[in-house]
């Protein structure tokens, strides 16, 4: 069965620190990869997505993610976080033909000013 693992359940950073959130998936075929963000009291929003092409994907608000096929990973990065990045981040995978997103358990990020 497909699964998505997010290794960090809770991350606490100070403003201006660099961020990397891990995501690994367990499917060997063609995959589409996503990161979603849920700010406090708001609905889930798409942060970035990868379908094909350049494995380094840039999203909104300075976030980027790198698809490394050999490692089945799609880690999310941001060079310098802000207090407003405090949110829960979800990695999701859609494997070819399944037509549904499988989500990881999420990572809660708290950024202190």
């Amino acid at each position: 069965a497909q699964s998505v693992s997010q290794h960090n359940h809770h991350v606490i950073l100070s403003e201006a620190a660099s961020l990397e959130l891990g995501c690994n998936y367990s499917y060997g075929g063609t995959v589409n990869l996503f990161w979603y963000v849920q700010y406090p009291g708001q609905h889930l929003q798409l942060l970035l997505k990868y379908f094909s092409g350049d494995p380094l994907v840039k999203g909104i608000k300075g976030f980027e993610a790198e698809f490394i096929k050999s490692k089945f990973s799609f880690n999310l990065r941001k060079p310098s976080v802000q207090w407003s990045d405090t949110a829960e981040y979800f990695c999701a995978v859609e494997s070819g033909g399944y037509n549904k997103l499988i989500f990881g358990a999420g990572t809660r990020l708290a950024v202190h000013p």
Partner: protein
Amino acid sequence: GAGVSQSPSNKVTEKGKDVELRCDPISGHTALYWYRQSLGQGLEFLIYFQGNSAPDKSGLPSDRFSAERTGGSVSTLTIQRTQQEDSAVYLCASSRGQVYGYTFGSGTRLTVV
């Protein structure tokens, strides 16, 4: 509409009662998804609609759960004889195609007492 609309936003029900949750997707979005988000858990897939048909209902936890979609638009998720473990946030998402990702609603927070 401009976004995915879900109603009610909050629902408190007594154990054993039936509840009906409604999702109004973005106009023109042919795909519709229901997910469940429990406290501290990721998003659990429930069911996927393409038009009015449900090619994947593998995530429905039991036969107390059912869903339908009419006119390729509004969907209702029905939970019969609710149990306390059904307490969660039920999220609906719609999409016009894989390339575009999903747009999520704000969810219905269901509490079974």
